[in-house]
């Protein structure tokens, strides 16, 4: 009886350390290095590194689904020059320490040609040094911290960065939500939360939006009453949450309980259904968020992708699924144009970077479901607009007024 229980506990441990939920694709992939020449010609392998568990797991889930759909479509259409695309999913749990381990693993894998990921800015930054040293492309479909692409020539992203997003939010509040004059900032004390706060505060000060409070919370915080009490005392018209969906949901819920009536505004880190279920639809009602992409009614390409996504996964896609779908598409395109089976691994990895870096004008850009993607000299995408969504009747819907001309 005792041995039985110990057995269960050991099983739990093994499950944790050994089996990440989405590694089934990795198992299917041929990992035996004995006959690698034969296999290497059959398949092209890339990694998708995302928070499949932990506090950002809902994003990771959508990233995985988006990548799987693109992989399926590519392979059903005959693969990349006849070779099948294989995706290895790696879980960084949204933590710096895990991201470093994942990056080491990928860099040392003799078959992985490029990485789509990571999601959290802090993870992309942690893995960056390792990818940079190994000479492998790190293509993030979600990290928005300003410095992400500046620091390494191997890092790219297909969405705006927080320098733009923070500025945009301040301008949207100033231009559209004109009744708001004072704002309190409540930020997650990590690379994403602080970077976005800085950009927002800088622009707000420039355009005369008054910042009346700036409070921090940590990764593990689930009770925000104390900070909310001090924010409430400043009577802000709006509270800008610079953080992620699960904690933001609790903040909004606990704020409404505490009688805070301020307008809430959040950024793309909140763009997930879990925010609504955590906060409760009544408390979340009227919350504005910014996001890099929305599925519009009049875009046939996005509509088609959304339909295929629903068919394959039985849930509608979100922003991150779409951005990952495009990121995998861009890597696949790079592989199609550059992959040389005769060449060394390092050369093939480098060729992908050279290909992406050469996409630096709108004419050469990649047209995906999230619009045209091309890069500046850092690897940043600077042409994509920000969209605004608002919670209405318990759902995220595009806000009536968009400021798409601001780029």
């Amino acid at each position, binding site marked *: 009886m005792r041995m039985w229980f110990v057995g269960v506990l050991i099983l739990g441990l093994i499950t944790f350390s050994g089996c990440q939920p989405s590694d089934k694709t990795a198992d299917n992939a041929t990992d035996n290095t004995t006959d690698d020449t034969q296999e290497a010609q059959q398949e092209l392998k890339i990694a998708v590194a995302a928070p499949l568990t932990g*506090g950002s797991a809902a994003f990771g889930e959508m990233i995985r689904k988006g990548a799987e759909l693109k992989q399926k479509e590519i392979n059903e259409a005959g693969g990349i020059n006849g070779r099948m695309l294989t995706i290895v999913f790696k879980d960084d749990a949204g933590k710096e320490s895990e991201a470093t381990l994942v990056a080491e693993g990928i860099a040392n894998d003799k078959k992985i040609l490029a990485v789509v990921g990571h999601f959290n800015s802090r993870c992309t930054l942690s893995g960056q040094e390792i990818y940079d040293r190994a000479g492998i492309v790190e293509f993030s479909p979600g990290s928005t911290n300003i410095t992400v692409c500046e620091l390494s020539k191997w890092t790219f992203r297909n969405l705006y960065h927080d320098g733009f997003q923070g500025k945009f939010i301040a301008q949207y509040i100033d231009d559209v939500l004109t009744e708001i004059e004072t704002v309190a900032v409540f930020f997650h004390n990590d690379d994403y939360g602080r970077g976005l706060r800085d950009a927002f505060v800088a622009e707000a000060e420039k355009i005369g939006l008054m910042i009346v409070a700036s*409070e921090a919370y940590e990764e*593990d915080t689930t009770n925000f*009453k*104390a900070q909310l009490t001090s924010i409430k005392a400043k009577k802000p018209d709006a509270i800008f949450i610079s953080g992620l969906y699960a904690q933001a949901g609790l903040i909004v819920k606990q704020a*409404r309980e*505490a*009688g805070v009536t301020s307008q809430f505004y959040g950024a793309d880190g909140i763009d997930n259904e879990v925010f609504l279920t955590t906060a409760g639809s009544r408390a979340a009602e009227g919350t504005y968020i910014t996001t890099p992409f929305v599925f519009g009614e009049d875009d046939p390409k996005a509509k088609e992708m959304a339909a295929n996504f629903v068919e394959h996964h039985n849930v509608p896609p979100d922003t991150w699924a779409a951005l990952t779908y495009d990121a995998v598409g861009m890597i696949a395109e790079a592989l199609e144009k550059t992959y040389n089976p005769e060449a060394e691994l390092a050369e093939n990895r480098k060729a992908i970077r050279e290909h992406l870096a050469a996409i630096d004008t709108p004419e050469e850009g990649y047209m995906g479901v999230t619009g045209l993607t091309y890069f500046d000299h850092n690897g940043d995408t600077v042409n994509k607009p920000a969209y605004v969504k608002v919670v209405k009747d318990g759902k995220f819907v595009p806000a009536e007024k968009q400021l798409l001309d601001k780029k």
Partner: protein
Amino acid sequence: MWAQYFEQFINGLVQGGIYALIAVGYTMVYGIIQLINFAHGEIYMFGAYFGLILITVFHIPFWIALPLAMLLCALLGMLIDYVAYRPLRTAPRLSALITAIGISIALQNLARMFWTAEPQVYPTDSLPSIFVSGLNDMGEVINVIPLPGGGTLPYRDVFILLIAVALMIILNLLIYYTRIGKAMRACAQNAVAANLMGINANRVILATFAVGSALGAVAGVMVGLSENVTPTMGYYKGVAAFAAAVLGGIGSVTGAIVGGLLIGLAEAFGADFHSGYRIAFAYIIMILVILIRPTGLFGKATSKRA
């Protein structure tokens, strides 16, 4: 200004009540077998999940789910003692400590296996309506007691405070006025001598684990009501509660209660002063107290432990 401080005081008390409920579990076990039961934070987490599952899957009303979650956690605590700690009773203390850390990691991962890592919330429509505070359709804040200066105290938090106080009183009655309480105190003073006097020490230790774990379950369910439930939720609150137990003097039940309240208050006022260092304030206070009084506020080398 004062209204804000008063509100922070209330915030601190409610958090402190939760910490105290968890800290009692640490301190009781330490008092009786000198083991820092690092798995206690995970027992609290399981309490939150038990409550959630009973309410959402088995559709059991909250008022029955709460005692059931306590019972399940008490059984879990006893099972852990029986399986993991009892075989090590005579082993060096370090072995038991390492086992405790191992059990903590294993329980966290079991929870992740059973219920995934995704944060979950107690569904508001299956809770007693007085616990569901927030805005109603008219934009009014309901189910709260208004505080001076525009603040609010949700009924739920009042309930948390009341149940914490009530359980502490019951616990003290149990320890000082019942046979099992007497046996606990005897074992805490000298387990070998207690055994010689005919007290079954192993049974007393099981009872201690049961009581501590049941209180942890209450804390878990209470936190589930206002925050979310995740496999790692036991870590942060567990560490804070452990700090509370050390601050109050580990081994002393009164110390755990006072320590819990002090840590809660320190966090609330710390956050008010500078939110970036919210958690640091609690530990600075703990370190200062330990520097001046190494045994903690209520810990005495020869004190009655239970």
